[in-house]
C-alpha cells in the first residue's frame, strides 16, 4: 500500500497532465455542441471588461474612417429621401390612383435593431468569433442575427448580462441560407478557413442562373434574418464533385477585419415562428 502511494506521488505530474488534457478536450468538444459553456469565453464579465477597455481605446483610432462612412451613408439616405419624396409627389399628382402615403398600421414591421460596439474580433483563426458590448439586459437573445452597415456579420451564440459572442460568417460552424438576388434557388454559405474576404456558397442547384458580380442576399427562410440583406457578391464559381450543385466563391460585403459597430436584429415574431415549426415537426 505504502509503495503504491509512493509510486502515485512520484508520478503525480503524469496524472496532472492527463487531468488537464481531459479538461481541455472536454471544453473543446462541449463548445462544438449546441450547449456551450458560458464561463470560458469572452462573454464572461472579467474578460468582457478588459476587452471593452481595449476596444474603447481602439475606437478612437478609427474615428476618421467611421466619420467618412457615416457621411457616405448620410448622403445615400438623403438621395433615398429625395427619391421617395418625388415618388409621393408623382402619386399625389396622379389623384386617381393615390390612396394616401399613410402606411397600413395593422401590419407592423417585425424586425428591430439594437446597435452594439465590437469589443473583440478575430479573423485569423479557423473558428472566428466576435464579442459585442450588449447582452441579455439590452434584449439580446441566443440565435439573433447580426449585421453591419455593409452586410451580414453572423449569429449570436452566447449571451451574458452585458456582453454577447457572435459566430461570425468566418466560421465553418455557421451555415447561412442565402440566394442569388433575382432568382429564388438558395444554397448554404460556409467558410473554408482560408481568406477573410471570401466565403463559399454551397449546394446551389444546377439550374440556378447567375453571373459573376451578382449580389448574394439572405433567403429569409429562417426566423433569424429578414430576406434580402446583402451578404456579398459572386466572385467565381465551380461545380461540386457530384455535379448536381454549383459552389460559388462569394466576396463578402462585410469588412470583417475592420468591424466596429454592428446591429443585432430582433424579430418580434421569432418565438411564434419557432413554436409553430416545432409543433409541425412533432407530428412526424
Amino acid at each position, binding site marked *: 500500500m505504502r509503495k503504491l502511494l509512493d509510486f502515485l506521488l512520484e508520478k503525480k*505530474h503524469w496524472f496532472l497532465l492527463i487531468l488537464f488534457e481531459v479538461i*481541455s478536450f472536454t471544453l473543446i468538444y462541449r463548445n462544438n455542441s449546441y450547449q456551450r459553456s458560458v464561463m*470560458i469565453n469572452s462573454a464572461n464579465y472579467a474578460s468582457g471588461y478588459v*476587452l471593452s477597455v*481595449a476596444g474603447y481605446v481602439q475606437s478612437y483610432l478609427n474615428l476618421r474612417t467611421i466619420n467618412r462612412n457615416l457621411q457616405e451613408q448620410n448622403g445615400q439616405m438623403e438621395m433615398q429621401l429625395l427619391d421617395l419624396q418625388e415618388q409621393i409627389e408623382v402619386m399625389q399628382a396622379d389623384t386617381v390612383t393615390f390612396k394616401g402615403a399613410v402606411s397600413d398600421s395593422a401590419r407592423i414591421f417585425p424586425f428591430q435593431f439594437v446597435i452594439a460596439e465590437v469589443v473583440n474580433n*478575430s*479573423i485569423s483563426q479557423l*473558428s472566428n468569433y466576435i464579442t459585442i458590448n450588449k447582452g441579455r439586459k439590452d434584449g439580446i437573445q441566443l440565435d439573433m442575427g447580426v449585421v453591419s452597415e455593409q452586410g451580414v456579420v453572423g449569429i449570436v451564440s452566447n449571451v451574458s448580462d452585458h456582453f454577447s*459572442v457572435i459566430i461570425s460568417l468566418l466560421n465553418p460552424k455557421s451555415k447561412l441560407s442565402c440566394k442569388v438576388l433575382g432568382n429564388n434557388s438558395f444554397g448554404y454559405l460556409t467558410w473554408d478557413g482560408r481568406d*477573410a474576404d471570401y466565403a463559399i456558397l454551397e449546394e446551389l442547384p444546377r439550374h440556378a442562373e447567375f453571373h459573376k458580380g451578382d449580389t448574394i442576399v439572405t433567403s429569409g427562410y429562417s426566423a433569424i434574418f429578414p430576406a434580402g440583406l446583402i451578404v456579398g457578391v459572386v466572385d467565381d464559381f465551380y461545380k461540386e464533385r457530384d455535379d448536381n450543385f454549383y459552389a460559388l466563391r462569394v466576396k463578402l460585403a462585410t469588412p470583417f477585419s475592420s468591424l466596429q459597430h454592428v446591429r443585432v436584429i430582433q424579430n418580434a415574431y421569432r418565438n411564434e415562428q419557432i413554436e409553430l415549426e416545432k409543433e409541425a415537426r412533432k407530428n412526424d
Partner: protein
Amino acid sequence: MINRIIRALVYFGIFVLLQILVLNNIHYLRIATPFLYIYCILKMPVGMSRSSLLCFSFFTGLLIDMFSNTPGMHAAACSLAGFLRDPLLTFLKGEDLPKGLYPSYHSLGHAGFLRYMFLFVLIHHLTLFLVEALTLFDPLFLSIRIIASVLTTSLLICVVELFNFETQKIGE
C-alpha cells in the same frame, strides 16, 4: 521563494496582456499569428517541480483561451508543452543543470537556448494547430500556417530575449 513568485507573476502579466491586446490581432499575410505568451512558461526556472510548472502552463493557456474564444485549445497545447519542458532540457543539456537556473542565452549558450526555444515552440504550435484542425482539415494550408507561426513566434522570442533586462543583468 517570494521573489520567484513575483517574477513569475510579472512575466505572466506582461506577456499574457501583450498576447491578448496586441498579438492576437496580428495575422501576417493572413497565415502567421505569433504566440509570444509561451515565453513566460519558457523562462520558468530549472528545478521547479514538474506539477507546479504544469499547473502554471495550464492556467496560462486557459486564460488565453478565455480571451480568444478558443476554449481548451491553448490549455491543451500549453499543458503538453509545460509537461515536456523538463525532459526537453535534460535531452538537450543533460542532468547537470543547476537548480534555480533561468534559461537564457547566457546560461544555456546561444545555440543551446535557440535549440531549446525552437523545440519548445514547435511542440506548442503543433499541438495547438492540430487540435484546431479537428474542426476543419486542410493539410497544405495547415502546414503553411504551422511553419509560418513557428517562425514568427521564434523570431519574436529571440528579440524579446535579447532585450530582457533580467538576462542582461546576469550577463554582466
